[in-house]
């Protein structure tokens, strides 16, 4: 298992002596961190291990409704479904059954919304929204949504949050080292003090 942070720290560790001399600048740390991140797990084109093709299609449709692709990239571009497949296969296999049940519940609602539809992914976008609104307070919905967030905002080292799409959306910089001022109000306070 590649661990970006571990490799970063190995680099930082070699600089400990320098640190005491004040030589470990934010730039050096940022460079080391960027370098460590270069080895991301690539999930593109990997066969699914947990999802059936049908489940993958349904969950993809769900994920795209939770975080759609609009002016900015969404769940699709972040590789959410592939990451969730990896997560359920490798990290939380104990949740496979509950997750499959939650998908079944979504499909059951899809059939209520549009009796002729074979599955959630077969609904029109408007019907998908209607079906999701009908179940959005349920635990099953919560579970499906939570995994979208894991895939969208998780550590890119594992292959989700591809190209840091999720982090870029919300303005989370993954720099490891920051110096004050951190935000507008503490910057103002610093100015006033000066």
């Amino acid at each position: 298992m590649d661990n970006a942070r571990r490799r970063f720290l190995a680099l930082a560790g070699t600089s400990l002596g320098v640190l005491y001399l004040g030589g470990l600048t934010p730039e050096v740390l940022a460079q080391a961190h960027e370098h460590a991140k270069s080895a991301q797990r690539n999930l593109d084109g990997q066969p699914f291990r947990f999802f059936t093709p049908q489940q993958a299609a349904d969950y993809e449709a769900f994920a795209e409704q939770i975080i759609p692709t609009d002016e900015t990239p969404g769940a699709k571009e972040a590789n959410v479904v592939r990451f969730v497949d990896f997560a359920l296969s490798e990290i939380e296999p104990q949740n496979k059954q509950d997750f499959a049940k939650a998908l079944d519940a979504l499909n059951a609602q899809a059939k209520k919304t549009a009796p002729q539809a074979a599955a959630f992914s077969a609904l029109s976008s408007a019907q998908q929204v209607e079906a999701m609104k009908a179940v959005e307070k349920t635990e099953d919905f919560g579970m499906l949504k939570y995994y979208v967030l894991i895939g969208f905002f998780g550590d890119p080292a594992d292959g989700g949050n591809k190209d840091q799409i999720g982090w870029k959306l919300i303005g989370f910089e993954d720099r490891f080292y920051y110096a004050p001022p951190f935000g507008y109000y503490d910057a103002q306070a610093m100015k006033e003090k000066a």
Partner: protein
Amino acid sequence: MSAAPEQRRYKLTDQVDFLIVGCGASGSVLARELSRNGFSVVALEQGPWLDRSQFTHDEYRVQAQHLLTNNPQKQPMTFRKTPKDKAVKQPALIYGRMVGGGTVHFTANYWRFHEIDFIEASKKGTIPGTGFADWPITYADMEPYYTKAEWDLGVSGQAGASPFDPPRSKPYPLPPMPVKSSGVLFEQGARKLGYHPFPAPMAILSQSYQGRLACAHCGFCMGFGCEMGAKSSPLPTMVPQAVATGRCEIRPHSYVRKIELDAHGRAIGAVYFDQNGKENLQHAKAFIVSSNGSETPRLLLLSKSNRFPDGLANSSGIVGKYLMFNTDPLCGGTFEHELNEYKSIQVTRILHDFYEIDPKHGFYGGGGLDARFLWTPISFGSIGMSPRAPQWGSDYKKAMAKNFNRTMFIACHTTSLPVADNSISLDDTVKDAWGLPAMRVTYKDHPDDLKTGQFLLDRGMEIMQAAGAQDRWAFPIEETTFGFHLLGTCRMGNDPKSSVINSDHRTHDVPNLFLCDGSSFVTSGRGQPTETIQTLAFRASDRITALAKKGEI
């Protein structure tokens, strides 16, 4: 997973001076102090011994894989609100399960108790239906050890900044951490309302200290291990210092299931499972259980014998009782400009104006407030926004993009009254992965605790408004069903009928058995117990050393 370094090794048959069960906030302090005082020490720790290079900011893995904490799959628990209810299998509490314990992943708020915390019952009177009582020790007894904890571990803060602070013999060793936008806004709002906000004392290094590096402001304190070693947990401090004495062995993956007694009622050994599930018996002359406020009583209750059919050192019948969680009400707000709260430590400003809420309000209680940000991206997307914000779809996405860096929270930290029914007990219907009875948690907040929480939450919402929040929201006060401060379950006292340990941390029933951790608390303090847990351990080390040197153990 384990990186046990070169250290002194003892044999199971070696009768070491002290065997410590649990190498966390308090156990690691005892291990260092006692080994420095010349004693041979073995510390058995349930969890792994991780090196800081093994920590990660991967919020999904840390939570899903329980990298730093107890694992509900292997260690199931049950929960019920009252003894009349049927306990249901569900996670009911969390603790640090590793060398270093919960202080590895804690937020690093480091508050002393105030004088009143030790003598509150005699000042305010008893409260019917509770075990509200004075401690057998006072703030004056603790003060030198609070100072020692702050200087030995490394704490950043500003002495004298709060008019409510108790007296102290020395300032903090390090200046306060740089203020964040949340701290600036909190301070502005609180001052408008006439309160006295001040820099939060934090067990995080604002400057390099004793060979350790200063904080890099990465933002991953709460819930994560510190890769810089700048968080003043035992991992970069007590643990290597204990090992360096050459008299202390820390044995990870060692899960103690029973303390054995001899025919005279003295403890002779601890039975534990090692990493391979093999049972071992480690001998020792004296035993200190520092396994936290949930596992310490559980181990005593598991250690039944003919002499102690209700659990070891439980002649009082109160082992496991008077569990206190503190409550943690929370409100959020969004602001016009960017705060970028994901950067740097969680908390930079707090206030103690309501440490003691005026009894004229009709309830007992008190606490503190702090300004913080407590989400990382996944948790922010789950619960970090106002309940009125859209929860999915394009509008949700836009709201996250706008608010992640414009949001802050005010967290309240409250008293919890000691109630006998609130407890840790054994649930024989559920077994853990080692075949032992699961922990059963019974908990229902005293009504005054909920009123205290509401009172502080209302003040938090007012501060948020005074600070100029564009939107603000409060999470409703609800009864606590999940705990992370584990306090009071083997309380300290002078009377063997109403307490488990005396003021030297010695159990009333077994002369060579001591308990020292959150379980020793008599009352709950104001929601930040860690400094007091560790200070008790520094003090206990001196008391126990004195007893041992006099041949009185």
